[in-house]
Structures are given as C-alpha cells and as structure tokens.
C-alpha cells in the first residue's frame, strides 16, 4: 500500500523533497536567503491558505465563491472594530468569524436557494463589502493589545521548519496548517468529503443516491465562510493591527488562483500559497536591497503577473469539479 501511494504521488514527492533540500541549503548557506524571508513568505501565505481553502470547499461542492475578497474585508473590519470598541481581542475574533459565516450564508442562500448566478453573487458581495466598510470606517481606533504568540512545543525545535512555522506563531498560523490538513483529510477520507465531492461533480447522481444536494452545498459554503473570517481577522488584528480601506488588496482573488493552481486540492493549494508568499517576499526584498533597479510599484504587481502566467500554463492541465457554477434543480435531468 505504501509503495502504491509513493508511485501515485511520485511527482509531488520529488518536488517536495527538492524544494525542502533547496530551502535548507539556502537557509544555511553563507550569503543565502535571509531567515526573515522565510518568515515573511509564510506570513503572506497564511491568509492565502485560509482563503484558498474557502474556495476549495465551495467549488468541491459546486459553488464558485468569488466573494472571498469581500468576506475577508468585512471580517477584517468587524474583527478590528469589535475589539477596538469592546476592548477584548476575543470579541473581535468572534465578530470576524461570525461576519464571515453570515456572508458565507448570504452567498450560499442566494446561489443555492435562489439560484442566482454565482459569479454575480460574489461580485455583489464584494461591492457591498467595500461600500459598507468604507461607509462605517472611522480612523484613529486602536486594538486593545497584540494577539498572543507562542512556540509550539517540540515542533518548534525542528531546524528551519520549526523556526518558520512553529516559533513565535499565532493561532491563525497554526489554524492555517491544521485547517489545510483537516480539509484534505475531510475531503478525501471521510463520508462528508465523498458526499461533498459527488455533489460538486455530478449532483443528480448524488441526489439519486439520497444525498441532500442543496443542504450540503448550503452548509459547506456557509461554514467555509468562517475560514474566510479567520483570514480577514488575521489581516487586521495579527499581521498589522490596524484596519485600512480595501486592505485585503486582491488576496481573496489570488486565493482563487491558488486554488486552481493547486488543482482544487487543499495541500497543493497550501504549497502554492507558500510559493506566492515567496514571490512576495522576493519582491519586497528586491525593493529594499536596491541591488536591482526595479521600481517598487512594479514589484508589487509580481504576484498578479505570476498568477496569469502560471494559470496560462496550468489551465487545461487541471480539471475543475464538474458541476462548478451550475445551480442544482431537483428533478432537472
């Protein structure tokens, strides 16, 4: 069984080993990559991982979620201001996750129950999110404190991996790792996962088998909203401790691209998110070092340029879930 598994995942394993070895070599080599690059890459990747998982869960159940950007923005807003006004970080985190759930529920209800076009529903969500957060934005508020950071016992002692992922880490960083593992296990090794995938691939077959297609889609898209909430809260309360207008800055859309590049698989999306984190870290490094005469305005577009290039290569090689984007009408086929 083990050998079969290795044979099946040969490419993935080879790539993983090569990347890991390269990472260690550059980490310990003289004049290699500075350790801060690794940390900054992971810091940029955390919300992308969480948001990409939202996309994976949604599309695996057959619902396109282009409103992740808006969900994150509202969650960042709600989390920041709820804790600024209440004086409690916990209240903020809960408010952020709650708002993510509400918007997830909104998207689920409009697309699944009302059969609204899924892309338009997402666009509406994004416009509402931008409008509401700008409308109620008040400058000059502060968080009551910093999010707690901690070292994960044992794991933080692993060289490099421990330093980057498990030392001085926050609940959201840990959550991103756990969530990626959990969604992977859930999708491919549980009854829920099999049902979710079948609902996303061939809903009428799933319906015939007695699965409540609409309910499963509703529940999945709504609950996935909580992860988008965490991603948003991370941005305004952990990564920066301030809320700015449009602070999500395209991360929600990048996450969708990451989901596609990760072939709708949670762990591959996790790796792709870290890849994007690295692109961003390299971009900001270029900006600071001054060795290259690249204007900072252009290095900032690097993740988006890379997305288009990678998608142009990846498209056609990866396959979307069969029923993505199509509302399900019982008894239609």
């Amino acid at each position, binding site marked *: 069984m083990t050998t079969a598994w290795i044979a099946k995942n040969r490419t993935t394993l080879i790539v993983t080993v090569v990347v890991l070895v390269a990472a260690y070599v550059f980490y310990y080599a003289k004049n290699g990559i500075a350790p801060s690059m690794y940390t900054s890459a992971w810091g940029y990747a955390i919300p992308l991982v969480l948001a990409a998982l939202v996309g994976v869960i949604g599309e695996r159940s057959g619902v396109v979620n282009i409103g992740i950007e808006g969900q994150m923005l509202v969650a960042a807003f709600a989390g920041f201001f709820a804790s600024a006004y209440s004086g409690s970080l916990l209240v903020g985190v809960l408010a952020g996750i709650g708002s993510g759930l509400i918007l997830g529920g909104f998207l689920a209800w409009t697309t699944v129950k009302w059969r609204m076009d899924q892309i338009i529903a997402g666009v509406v969500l994004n416009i509402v999110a931008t409008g509401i957060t700008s*409308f109620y934005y008040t400058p000059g508020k502060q968080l009551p404190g910093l999010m707690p950071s901690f070292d994960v016992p044992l794991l933080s002692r692993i060289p490099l991996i421990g330093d980057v992922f498990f030392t001085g880490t926050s609940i959201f960083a840990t959550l991103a790792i756990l969530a990626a593992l959990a969604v992977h296990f859930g999708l491919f090794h549980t009854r829920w996962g099999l049902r979710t995938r079948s609902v996303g691939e061939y809903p009428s077959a799933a319906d015939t088998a007695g699965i409540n297609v609409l309910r499963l889609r509703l529940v999945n898209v709504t609950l996935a909203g909580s992860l988008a909430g965490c991603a948003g809260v991370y941005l305004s309360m952990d990564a920066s401790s301030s809320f700015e207008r449009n602070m999500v800055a395209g991360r929600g859309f990048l996450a969708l691209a990451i989901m596609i590049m990760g072939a709708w698989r949670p762990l591959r999306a996790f790796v792709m998110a870290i890849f994007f984190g690295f692109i961003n870290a390299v971009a900001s490094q270029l900006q600071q070092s001054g060795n290259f005469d690249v204007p900072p305005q252009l290095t900032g577009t690097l993740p988006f340029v890379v997305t*288009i290039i990678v998608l142009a290569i990846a498209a056609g090689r990866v*396959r979307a879930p069969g029923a993505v984007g199509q509302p399900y009408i019982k008894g239609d086929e």
Partner: protein
Amino acid sequence: MSETPTVAEQAAPPPPDGSPSDEGRPDRQPLAFMLTHQSGVVIVVALIIALAVGALLIRLQGVAPLFAYETLIKQALFVPDGLTRTLQKTAPLVLTGLAVVLPLRVGLFNIGGQGQLIFGAMFGAWVAYAAGGYGILGAVLGMVAGIVAGAFVGWIAGVLKATRGVHEVITTIMLNYIAAGVTWWLVTGPLQAESSKTSGIPQTELIPESAQVGAVAKIPIGFVIAVVLAVACWWMLSRSTLGFRFNTVGANKHAARYAGINISRIVTLSMVLGGGLAGLAGALEAEGTLYRFEPAVGGTLGFDGITIALLARANPLATIPAAFLVGVLRTGAAGLQFETGIAPEVVDVLLATILLMVSIPVLGKWIFRSRADKVSAASTSWGN
C-alpha cells in the same frame, strides 16, 4: 473554447443518452439570455428595494432619508451646471457599461473594466499632452491611444480565454491590479509632471486646453460620443453579421461551432472591443474631467459598469438610462456629503442592492408567480 476539446471537456461526465446538453435546456440558459428576457417590472422593484435599504442606512446616520434623497437629486440635476456634471459622469459610465455588455453577449464576464479604463486614461492623457499642440487632432489621438491601450488589456484576457482556456474573471481581476501598479509607476516615474516631481503628487502634465474635451452648449462632447457608441453597439449586435455571431456564440457554443463560426476569434474580439470601450472611457475622463492622469481617475467607474450592464439587461441602448441613473447617484452623493455629511459610499450599497435584486432569478418568480425565472450560468467551470 478552442476547437479541440480541453481536458476538462473530455473528462466531464457525458450527458445521459438522449438527453440534450445543458445549453439546450430552457432553464440552463446563459446569463445574457436571462438578462435580455427579464421583465422591466423587476428593475422597478429592485430600485424601490434599493432605495429602501439606502434610506435605512441614511436613517441610522441620523438624517431624514427623504431630505437626503431630495438633496441628492437636487445636487445632481438642479444646481447650476449640475446636469452638465452629471452627463459628464454618465459618459464614461455608458462606456464601461458597454465594456461589460459586449463580452456578456458572447458569454464572457468582463470585470476588468477598471484596469482597461485606467490604462486607457494613462495613455490617453499622455498622448493628448504630447500631441496637444495639434489642437483637436491631439484630443482625437488621445482618445485613439486610450482605446488601443484598453483594447490591449482586454486582448490579454480574451486571448488567454480563447487559446488557453483561462477563466476571464480571474485574468481580468489580476489585470486590474497589474494596470493599477503599472500606471502608478508611470505616474510617479517616467511620466510624472515636472511641476509635481518636487511635491511628489502623482499626476501627469496638464493637457493643453486646445486638446481638452469640453462641452458644447452645456452638453459634454464625451456624452455625445458615448451615446453614439451605444447606438453603434446596438446596431452591431442586432443588425450586423458580427452581432449575429456574438449572439450565437453566447447562446450556444456548439451550434456556433457547427455553423462555422470561429469561436476563439469572436471571444477575443469581444474582449478587445470591451477593453477598447473602457479605455475610451478612461481617455475621456483624463481629457474631459481631470485634464491629466491621476491614479484615482478610475474611481468606481469600472465596477459601476457591471451594475449598469446588468441593470440594462445586456442591451446597449439601455445602458444610457442605466448609466444616467448611476451618474445621478454618484454626482449627487458628492453634494450629499457636503450638505449632510453622509459618506458617498452609501451609493455603493444602493448599487449593490440593485445589482443583487436584478440578478436574483427568484425575484421575477415572486412577482409573476410563474416559472419565469431563468437560471443563468455565466460562471461556467474555471477550467474551460
């Protein structure tokens, strides 16, 4: 999209024997069909609901909603030069609306109006400044440059969709950010006005007055151009062979392929035309409103185009009243803030509510109590 089926198409489960494919089914029609067959009553209801939601927000800010709406309308239409300013605002909105309508007829969702517009504005402003000595010719050259720049951005998304099958929604969004970054670099670097370099204000040189696009008898020239183009788009879509091809590809790709239509070319062309229209909107903003390029030139024009296109039910002529409505709201909102202190973002919420209401198939069903609802599938699978 291409002539050979993509991996996704091959791997998709074949439809059961004897059953028609999705495209042929009445309740699986593309978005364009749903929009063009939607009743006008839905739009009226959507407007009323949106105004009610806006009233609630305004009420919560401690201002009487009726007074606020009255101020808004007054500021947009009845103050001196108010109508001219509103029409000035309407012109780019008609164009960004058309920029969404044309690809929508082919079944593509262009949410890259923002990026195409800002690119058009940048190059329009630059060329109009550089050719400013030639008077009207300079103004025209600026517009052409804007069209070309916007069309180029649209072409990237279109050609990637047609040849590589990359979903246009993702590429256009990415291009929005790229266009913003590139123009920001140009306006703070190579193309920054000499006078602004010391103060650091990101803006290009002022376009000479002879190459500015002004107004004739209080009607902005840009508005006239926009209306002419809206009529031209309507003629193209409903009376020309090209329009027939657009509609055929949008309604049924398989039928279009059997009819010998080059789908890749039509898809690319729709994005090029859409991008060009958005680029022209940007050039007009630069030449007629700001008289130079500034990063904020786009505002929300690109995204308002989506609302306008859907409100207009993908009908080019209807983009004119739809854009006028949005123009009134946007122009009035600025005055509203001045008078009552209500943030102009309330209009975003209003427009989003309208957009939501006109695109819910159920709304039509509720109103007519029939199976009038048409399910759309603009959001086809990402892979193809």
